[in-house]
């Protein structure tokens, strides 16, 4: 082997080593939470990372602790409902932008981009006031509508991208066969873009599931809380005395997000780059 060849090989090895170390450091907090969730009751925080005695009962304990199962149910309902609303509306809008040229198209697309930039944080107080006036605080429809709306801008861009990649000739053929435009959309276009639509649905699900600050403001009654807000309450109640239970709650909340991300990472990464840079 030439000297240059050797140098490249060594360099590759070093880079791999650096990346491997960084990756392990980056997932260490997850590992730490999982390990803590397997400690014996009352021994949540100790100096060693891997438990000396393994205890698998914390998840069952968690199931009976406070209203945790109810929180998880609420999270599921709100996150699924919000995703569904987002996908229904964003796929129609994305299709419109992908297939039609109409007056104001450019402006409306810029509007969608601007909506993506509007921070949710500064909308918390007016939304809270509006919801309270409409007697909608602590309800599923409120949270579903908010999640649904916040997912729309990015999802329009993602769906538009999918529709752009489908050849128009299929729809033209359907139109010649006498299908109505809406019929073409539902019978021809949607089935082809089903994988993309499902990915968009699940990406939105993860965002909604993880959301903490919106439900913190909008859902304050105990039986309506979402798991993330429940975790915040648990942190106050359990940290320092029953950390193993708190850790189990962390693991339950992080698992769906991690699993879905690993399964759909291609779509996640693509969607993120498009949302931020392409615009």
């Amino acid at each position, binding site marked *: 082997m030439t000297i240059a060849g050797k140098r490249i090989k060594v360099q590759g090895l070093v*880079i*791999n080593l650096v*990346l491997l170390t960084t*990756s392990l450091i*980056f*997932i260490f907090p*997850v590992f*730490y*939470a999982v390990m*803590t969730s397997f400690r014996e009751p009352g021994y949540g*925080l100790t*100096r060693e990372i891997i438990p000396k005695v393994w205890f698998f009962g914390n998840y069952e304990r968690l199931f009976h602790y406070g209203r945790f199962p109810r929180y998880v149910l609420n999270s599921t309902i709100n996150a699924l409902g919000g995703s569904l609303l987002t996908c*229904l509306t*964003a796929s*129609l*809008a994305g299709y419109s932008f992908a297939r*039609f*040229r*109409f007056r104001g198209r450019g402006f*409306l697309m810029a*509007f969608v981009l601007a*909506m993506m*930039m*509007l*921070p949710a*944080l*500064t*909308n*918390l*107080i*007016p939304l*809270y*006031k*509006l919801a*309270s006036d409409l007697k909608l605080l602590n309800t599923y429809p409120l949270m579903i*509508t*908010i999640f649904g*709306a916040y997912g*729309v*801008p990015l999802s*329009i861009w993602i769906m538009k991208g999918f529709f752009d990649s489908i050849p128009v000739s299929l729809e033209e053929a359907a139109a010649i066969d006498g299908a109505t435009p809406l019929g073409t959309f539902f019978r021809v276009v949607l089935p082809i873009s089903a994988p993309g639509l499902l990915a968009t649905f699940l990406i939105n699900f993860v965002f909604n599931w*993880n959301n*903490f*600050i919106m439900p*913190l403001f909008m859902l304050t009654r105990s039986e309506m809380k979402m798991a993330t807000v429940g*975790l915040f309450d648990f*942190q106050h109640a359990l*940290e320092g005395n029953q950390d193993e239970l708190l850790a189990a709650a*962390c693991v339950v*909340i*992080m698992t769906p*997000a991690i699993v879905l991300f690993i399964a759909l*990472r291609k779509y*996640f*990464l693509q969607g*993120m*780059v498009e949302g*931020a*840079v392409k*615009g």
Partner: protein
Amino acid sequence: MRQSRVYPYLLLAPAFFLMFAVTLYPTLYSLYLSLNKIEKGRMTFIGLKNFQTILGSSDFWESLRLTLIFGFFYITLTLAFAFVMALLFNRGLRFGGIYMTLIFIPWVLSDIVSGVVWRWMFYRDYGVLQNLIGPLFGDKTLINTPAGAMGIVVAASTWRAMAYVMLLLLAGLQTIPRDVYEAGAIDGSTGWQAFWHLTWPLIRPVTLVVIVLLSIESINAIGMFLAITEGGPGRSTEVLSLHMWREALQFFHFGYGAALAVVMFFINLVLGVVYLRFMQTESSLGAA
């Protein structure tokens, strides 16, 4: 492309209705709320008084200062780290996909989950990182010191955002054609020269976009602060977002809180306009 008059607008209607009702309208409504005093659900119009109070409040300026400190360290660290990682990933490694997936996992965790875990890692006597790093700082419990608490939130936020920023930079790097480097190599440029004269000018636009994105994020960061410090010790990490949360949900000063939100909104707006500017220049570069 088909031409149609009403149809495309009909398809847009539901999505736009949602954005209007839940995003745009509340933003405008907050402008109105900020001109009122709201107590026990009763609103009294008081004009710009809330803004006067804000500008005269030392709590506001202190929280703005803390937000800027947080933003500065968060952006610098995240960008530097992400840059190095993007350059390494750009080598097209065999296991690149696996590393990328692992590094991205923090980004898909909820900020509250991340916060709970990071707080543990700095728990007094038991926290893994407290025991590792604490001795370097005279064995203080870092989370109980103002600088330490801020540092922990900066570290946790960097940990969470790094992969995303790295991906954006990587996407920028990958648009650079290989032959640019080959031409550079023929001219005899070294690695550092190649980076400075070839890579940097081409990814500068993406970098600017990322800086603005991170600035926006740092102003709106709240979840990690709530989970890790809740503004403490004392009020030493009470950034703007926490200040607003406290005024609204703890003291029920909704008018004042809305006015704070409006101030933050305008900071966002300025950054947003800068962001769109950078994106325009970038896409015009891409088209050229």
